């Protein structure tokens, strides 16, 4: 199981999903109408490290986070 967390303003409870890669996760999340608008503008972290490839493998216990546009300060 991989946990997926939605940070900041997305306001959606975490999910537990059975996926092997970010590519798989992407396809799954795109089906959620509540999320599809966010996916275009979110960065993605795996175990708190930002990642840049859809081929990033996921293992059971991994934590994925979606980070919407930021504005600190």
């Amino acid at each position, binding site marked *: 199981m991989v946990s997926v967390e939605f*940070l*900041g*303003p997305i306001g959606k409870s975490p999910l537990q999903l059975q996926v092997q890669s*970010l*590519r798989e*996760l*992407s*396809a799954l*999340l*795109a089906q959620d109408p509540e999320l599809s608008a966010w*996916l*275009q*503008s*979110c*960065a*993605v*972290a795996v175990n*708190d*490290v*930002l*990642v*840049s*490839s*859809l081929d990033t493998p996921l293992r059971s216990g991994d934590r994925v*986070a*979606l*980070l*919407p*546009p*930021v*504005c*600190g*300060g």
Partner: protein
Amino acid sequence: MLELHQGPLEVSAILSRWYESQKSFNYGAYIPFVGTVREEGGIEALSFDIYEPILQRWFEAWQARAAQQGAIVMMAHSIGDVPVHGSSYISAVFSPQRKVALSLIASFVEDFKAQAPIWKYDVIGGQRVYARARSTPIVGSGLLGGGA
């Protein structure tokens, strides 16, 4: 040092504490940047969410980058509500050299605005509204958006 505080920052206390903590270490320049919540658009306050694990990594990368120039960086940020004219953000650079300090504070603050995992909300009529139009997608955003 990265500090997160509930509510507005005590600006004078923080500026003074940081200064005193470093004054014997022969840094020639100390440049703090103090961000204050502006009264505009009818807001009562700004409010902030922070994702601390990634903020901490971002900050550690900047500590390493500053150390390569013999400098150090510090940062304090508010969590939750900060009323108009309160301060929500202070960062600072200590450096032996003036030019390093001036250049570093500018790039540190700009990268903070673009990358730090902090989300801002306008508080209007007691409601918290995501400041989407003023927010910046982190570099590499949209990775999951091209999915089949």
